[in-house]
C-alpha cells in the first residue's frame, strides 16, 4: 500500500518535473532581469500595436459595408464584400494588377540576369578600373532614381522613335531594373567572394567554360542571395508610386500603387474603402512570390562549406 504512495506522480503532458536539472545555457533570471524582460515586452507589444493597428483598421474598413467614400471611425461594422466589388467593377484594378505583375516579373528577370553577370565579373575577374567602377556604382546608387525623370522622358522619346512599340511601361521596367543593378551587384559580389575560388578552378579542370562555371557551380551556391535580390526587385514596382504616376499618363496603364493612389487623391474617383481593399490584395502576389522563392531563400551556403 505504501508502495503506491511512493510512486512518482504521473506527469501531465509528459512534461518534466520542475526539480529537473537546469538545462538552459543562460544564467537564471534575477529580479533586475525580470524587470528588464517586462520592459522589453512592453516596448515590443506597443511597437506591435503601432504596426498592427492601422493594418487592422484597413482590414476592418475594407470589409465594412457601412463605409462610404471616406473612411470614418466609430462606424457600425457590417461584413460584406461591397468594396471589393466596387474595386473590380468601377476601377481599372485588374488592369493595374496585370500591369504591375508583368512589370515586376520582367524587372525581376532583368535584374537577376544582369546582376548575375556583373556580380560574377566583379567577384572573379581582374580588370582595369575594377575598384574605381565599383566605387562609381555605389556613388550612383546614392542618387535617387527620380531625379533622372526628365532624362527618362528624353530617353523614351529617343528610343520610341526607331522602336515604336517601346512603351512608357517598358521604360519603367528599364528604370527599375537599371536602378537595382548597382546596389545588388555590390551585394552579390560580396556574397560570391565568400565562395572559394578553388571551386572555380576545380570546375575549370573538369571542363567548364566561364558560363558553365557560373551556371552549374556558382549560381546554385549563391542562390539564396539571388532569391533575395529577385524578391526585392519583384516588390519594387508594387511599392513605387512616384515614377509610374509621373511617367504613365493613362489610368489603365498605371501600376497598382499608382492606380490605388487615384482612389484617395483624386476627388472624381475618391473611394477610400476600395483603396483599403485594393491595398490588402497587393499582398497576394508578393506572398505568392515569396512562397515560390522560399525554398531558394534558405539552404545554400549553410548546406555546404568547402573546408574539412
Amino acid at each position: 500500500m505504501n508502495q503506491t504512495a511512493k510512486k512518482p506522480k504521473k506527469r501531465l503532458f509528459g512534461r518534466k518535473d520542475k526539480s529537473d536539472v537546469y538545462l538552459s545555457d543562460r544564467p537564471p533570471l534575477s529580479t533586475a532581469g525580470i524587470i528588464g524582460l517586462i520592459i522589453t515586452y512592453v516596448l515590443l507589444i506597443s511597437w506591435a500595436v503601432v504596426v498592427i493597428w492601422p493594418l487592422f483598421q484597413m482590414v476592418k474598413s475594407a470589409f465594412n459595408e457601412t463605409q462610404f467614400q471616406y473612411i470614418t471611425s466609430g462606424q457600425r461594422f457590417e461584413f460584406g464584400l461591397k468594396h471589393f466589388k466596387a474595386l473590380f467593377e468601377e476601377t481599372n484594378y485588374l488592369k493595374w494588377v496585370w500591369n504591375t505583375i508583368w512589370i515586376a516579373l520582367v524587372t525581376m528577370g532583368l535584374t537577376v540576369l544582369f546582376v548575375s553577370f556583373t556580380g560574377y565579373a566583379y567577384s572573379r575577374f581582374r580588370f582595369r578600373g575594377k575598384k574605381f567602377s565599383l566605387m562609381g556604382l555605389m556613388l550612383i546608387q546614392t542618387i535617387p532614381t527620380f531625379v533622372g525623370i526628365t532624362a527618362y522622358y528624353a530617353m523614351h522619346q529617343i528610343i520610341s522613335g526607331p522602336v515604336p512599340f517601346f512603351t512608357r511601361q517598358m521604360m519603367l521596367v528599364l528604370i527599375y531594373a537599371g536602378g537595382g543593378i548597382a546596389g545588388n551587384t555590390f551585394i552579390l559580389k560580396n556574397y560570391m567572394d565568400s565562395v572559394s575560388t578553388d571551386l572555380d578552378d576545380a570546375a575549370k579542370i573538369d571542363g567548364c567554360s566561364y558560363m558553365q562555371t557560373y551556371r552549374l557551380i556558382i549560381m546554385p551556391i549563391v542562390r539564396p542571395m539571388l532569391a533575395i535580390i529577385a524578391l526585392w526587385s519583384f516588390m519594387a514596382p508594387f511599392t513605387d508610386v512616384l515614377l509610374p504616376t509621373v511617367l504613365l499618363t493613362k489610368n489603365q496603364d498605371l501600376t497598382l500603387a499608382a492606380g490605388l493612389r487615384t482612389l484617395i487623391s483624386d476627388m472624381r474617383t475618391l473611394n477610400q474603402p476600395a483603396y483599403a481593399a485594393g491595398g490588402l490584395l497587393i499582398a497576394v502576389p508578393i506572398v505568392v512570390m515569396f512562397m515560390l522563392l522560399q525554398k531558394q531563400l534558405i539552404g545554400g551556403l549553410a548546406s555546404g562549406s568547402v573546408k574539412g
Partner: protein
Amino acid sequence: MDVKLVDIGKKYEGRSEYTLRNINLEIKDKDFCVILGPSGCGKSTLLRMIAGLNSITEGDLYFGDRRMNTVPPKDRDIAMVFQSYALYPHMSVYDNLAFSLSMKKENPKIINERVLEAAKVLQIEDYLQSKPSEISGGQRQRVALGRAMVRKPKVFLMDEPLSNLDAKLREHMRVELVRLHHSLDTTSIYVTHDQTEAMTMASKIILLDDGIIQQDGPPEEFYNQPANLFVATFIGSPTMNLFAGKMKDGVFISNDGDIRITPTPEDAKVLLAYQDKDVTVGIRSERFISGGELGDTFNAYVEVVEMLGKEKLLYGKLPKGQNITISVPGHFEYRPGETHSFGYDVEAIHYFDSSTTNRIV
C-alpha cells in the same frame, strides 16, 4: 607521361618580383614527385602552372613531347586534388564524382561504372547520395580523390591534400595515396610543406625555396647528401646539429673549441682546399656514439630527455653553451642533469662551406 619544365618562371600580375624563376625539372613517367618547401615559396604556384590554372610567364612546359603552355586545363588530361577539397557543395557525392565525365559527355553507363568503381576503392559507397557537408573530413578527402580518379588522368596533381586531416588519418592516407598512385599508373605531382610526407611518399623530391630549386632527387639523397645548409636543416626531424668552425691542420675545430673532428681520409682530401676557411659541420642526431671513448669525443650536459619509445631524444648543452640534440636507443639510461661523453660516426658527417652554404662533402 613525362612532365618537363624548361626554364619556367612566374611573375604575378601586380608584383614586381618573380615568384619563381629558372625552374628546370624533369619528372619521369609514373614518378611520385613531391614538391616540398616552406610556406609561401611558390609550390602551389608551380603546381597551378602545370595544371594550367596560372599562366606561365616564361619558359616551356612539356607533357611528353607536347608543349602545354597554352593548352586549357581540361585538355591537359590532368586531375587535381585541392587542399580545400573544393567539392561542389550543392551536389551529392555521386554527382561530384560524375561531374567531370558528364561535362565530357561521356556515356552514362560508363560514368556510372567508373563512379562506382572509384567509390568502391575509396570505400565511400555508402555516402554516394550524401551532400559533402554531411560527411566527415576524411570522407570528403576521399571524395576529392575519387573525383580525380574517375578521370583516369595522365598526370595526377595534389596540393596539400592531407593537411586538413588529423595525424592518425594522415598517416593512413599517406600509404593509401601511394597505393592509389601505383594502381592508377599515372605520374603524380604532390605539393606539401611537410618533410615527413615528402620523405615517406616520394620517389623524387623537389625542394623549393627563394624561388629556385634547392635540390631534387630521391629521398635518401636528401637525407644523406643535402646539397646545402637549407636542405640539411629542412629535411629530417629532429633538425640536424650544425657547428660553425674552421679547418685547422686537417682537423675541424668549432669556433668555441668544444668540437674537434678528424675527417675520414676521403673527406680530408676534399677538405684540403678549405684549410683555414670557414666550414660548417652537420651531424644528424642519431649519428653520435654513446659513451664514445675512441677518436674524437665531447662532453654534453643533458638538460631534457624526451622518451619516444624506440628512441630517446637528449637535448643537451656543450661546455661552452651550444645546444645539441642527440638520439639514443630507447632502452639506454640517460637522465636529465647528467653529463656524458659522446663520439661521432665520422662517416656520417656533412661539411658545408660557410660562405656559400653549399655542401663540400
